[in-house]
């Protein structure tokens, strides 16, 4: 099993551009999550999904959108990128337990 995979690993965006961060898991987990990690601030939940077709906002959803058309994939969309979205983004998944498995992260720089 590959676990949770994320692409790209690193990306530089200009202010106002948009992009999609990809996340896929092959563990048949129903729960999936997107976090952002800023230095000294821990992990903040952006969006989460409890199954295909169901998504909900987390703590910091503004400026982001998600979709969950399949169990495996949970892409995160950034529209009109802003410098405040410079961060490291982690995708995670879990079964109906609390143990979340994290991907390797995507480092995003908005200039």
């Amino acid at each position, binding site marked *: 099993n590959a676990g949770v995979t994320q692409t790209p690993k690193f990306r530089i965006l200009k202010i106002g551009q948009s992009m999609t961060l990809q996340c896929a898991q092959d563990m048949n987990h129903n729960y999936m*999550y997107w976090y952002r990690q800023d230095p000294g601030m*821990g992990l903040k939940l952006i969006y989460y999904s409890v199954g295909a077709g169901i998504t909900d906002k987390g703590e910091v959803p503004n400026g982001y959108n998600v979709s969950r058309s399949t169990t495996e994939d949970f892409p995160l969309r950034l529209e009109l990128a802003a410098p405040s979205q410079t961060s490291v983004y982690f995708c995670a998944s879990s079964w109906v337990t*609390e143990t979340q498995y994290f991907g390797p992260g995507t480092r995003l720089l908005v200039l």
Partner: protein
Amino acid sequence: QQQVKQSPQSLIVQKGGISIINCAYENTAFDYFPWYQQFPGKGPALLIAIRPDVSEKKEGRFTISFNKSAKQFSLHIMDSQPGDSATYFCAASSRGGSEKLVFGKGTKLTVNP
């Protein structure tokens, strides 16, 4: 409002010493308390977790101590090794919260040889 407060922000320990990281929570509905370990450039990974029906859980050199009345829990790393150098996050969740974890801000541990 931060629901899980973690301290210290950074910690330096000599090889063989004991590393102690503390967390406090406010929400009495929390019933699951995991610790995650994160190495530079990697995603966090579950290290050890505890539920409030026990006061202590040990896995190898790692121990969680839990004090329900004080709403505090801590991670103890015995015989700390340079390979333990990482950032550690405590977290908490409640079953009624759709399994959402609330994380502390993290502790960067450095174990000197």
